[in-house]
């Protein structure tokens, strides 16, 4: 009975998590081909015997064409930028939540987190409506006489980071608010008793003690942001090479499945270290 209750979900995980990941590695060594599916796997059956026809051309192309290295770098920059902005805005927000009266803490935190569940498509629609050339923000600025001609906001880095921050900010606030609400305030009182000014207390006691939560918040944003596809596609600069978009384009437009798989492996390899670090933080 117990064995059956464990094997059933184990089989599901092996079939739908382990097997697809292994296939990704397998197909990355294949080559693009005409047909359905448009890929020649690395191992083929010819006359009843397996024949190795695998190739490293996808990986070679990734190394040769600077387009892909550029996409990797830009993805990491956008992910780090998003995570950095989320910390800059999220830390004071979390601090204010932690310093609020106890019965206000949970409602305030809920207010920060609830937008996550308002649906990504409606949220992105809202940003398009706000940022378009004829959009709400330009309308307000024009009427106020602050600008003469509409600003180009949509399909720019401004829109990209606004959309990314809007989606990911709550994820940064959550671990920070929990850590700051639980912190030992006695240490701060001791530092103040010993004559430290409030700014000094924050910089030498509160902030250093919250660094694990800061790291967790950064990684919680950085990891999903690095592979983000939908937000840059709808708000960011057109043709902006980010790994999520490049994988999507190689797969759906170029129909080069081995190259898409190789790019996915690169993304995984780059994220392996942050993911590992995040899981360690979670345990400690």
């Amino acid at each position, binding site marked *: *009975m*117990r064995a059956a*209750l*464990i094997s*059933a*979900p184990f089989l599901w*995980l*092996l079939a*739908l*998590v*382990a097997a*697809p990941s292994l*296939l*990704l590695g397998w*197909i990355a060594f294949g080559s693009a081909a005409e047909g359905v*599916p448009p890929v020649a796997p690395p191992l083929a059956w010819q006359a009843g015997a397996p024949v190795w026809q695998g190739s490293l051309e996808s990986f070679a192309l990734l190394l040769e064409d600077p387009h892909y290295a550029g996409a990797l770098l830009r993805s990491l920059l956008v992910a780090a930028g998003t995570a950095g902005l989320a910390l800059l*805005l999220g830390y*004071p*927000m979390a*601090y*204010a939540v932690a310093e609020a009266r106890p019965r206000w803490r949970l409602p305030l935190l809920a*207010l*920060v987190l609830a*937008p996550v*569940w308002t*649906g*990504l*498509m*409606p*949220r992105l*629609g*809202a940003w*398009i*409506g*706000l940022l*378009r050339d004829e*959009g*709400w923000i330009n*309308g307000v600025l024009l009427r106020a006489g602050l600008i003469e001609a509409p600003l180009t906001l949509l399909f720019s880095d401004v829109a990209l980071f606004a959309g990314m*921050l*809007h989606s990911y*900010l709550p994820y940064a*606030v959550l671990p920070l608010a929990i850590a700051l609400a639980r912190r030992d305030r006695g240490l701060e009182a001791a530092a103040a008793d010993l004559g430290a000014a409030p700014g000094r207390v924050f910089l030498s006691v509160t902030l250093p003690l919250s660094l694990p939560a800061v790291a967790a918040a950064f990684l919680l944003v950085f*990891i999903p942001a*690095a*592979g*983000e*596809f*939908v937000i840059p596609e*709808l708000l960011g600069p057109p043709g902006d090479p980010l790994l999520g978009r490049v*994988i999507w384009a190689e*797969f*759906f437009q170029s129909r080069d*499945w081995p190259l*898409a*798989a190789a790019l*996915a492996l690169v*993304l*995984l390899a780059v994220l392996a270290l942050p993911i590992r670090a*995040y899981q360690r933080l979670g345990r400690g």
Partner: protein
Amino acid sequence: MARLVLALGLLFLWAPILLLAGYAFSADRIPFQWGGFSLRWFAALAENARVQEAALLSLSVAAGAATLACLVGGLVGWALARGGRFRGRPLFGLLAGAPLVLPEVVTGLSLLLLFVLGQGAAEKLLGWRLERGAGTIVLAHATLGLAYVAVLVQARLARLDPLLEAAAQDLGATPFTVFRTITLPQMVPSLVAGWLLSFTLSLDDVVLASFVSGPAGTTLPVLIFSSLRMGLTPEVNALGVVILALVLAALGVAGWALRGRGGRS
């Protein structure tokens, strides 16, 4: 200072959503322009067959995926909390956590490869012609959802005193009776929350659904996504409000199911 940033941050988070909701009731054909109160865009939605078809598909996929996620994810969470030592446990834990951290383009691509090769094998070996569509989206969404369900169930069971189960066993209950009368009732709130969480994840997903569905499976978010690529229309704006209302209602039910139980963690 911090309070001011909190207020500004909340404004940043909520203003776009509230403006979207408000302008959905505007008669103007340009989105985010006020043209007087009107329900015309909701009426237009009610007559849009493509939207309704996609919404129906999305709701059934989400319900199916959430139910599967609870069945499998409940077992995964139970195995992690109460399974003790079993062969392959480190791998089991790794696989259960993987969908939480893998980028969605990677999950989508790898699941598609599995489904395509599975289709090929089924046709060659069994002569079955399988189509990708609602079924494959359900499998993909269930796999993502079950990882969240497992975390919730595991956390819930980790807080439950194992002595309760031991006491029931000492009093003569069979393992199945212990599970049915002690463990399972304790899992119910996290299963309800996990179901709603999986349901909303599924209703929000564009990437997995785009990868694993065939031409037949256009879910509501995929439909909105392709329409937003052309720009925002008042109809999509109104649709956003409908989704908002649905998700917030689901969130309310989830909060109610978990009320006072996991509040402190």
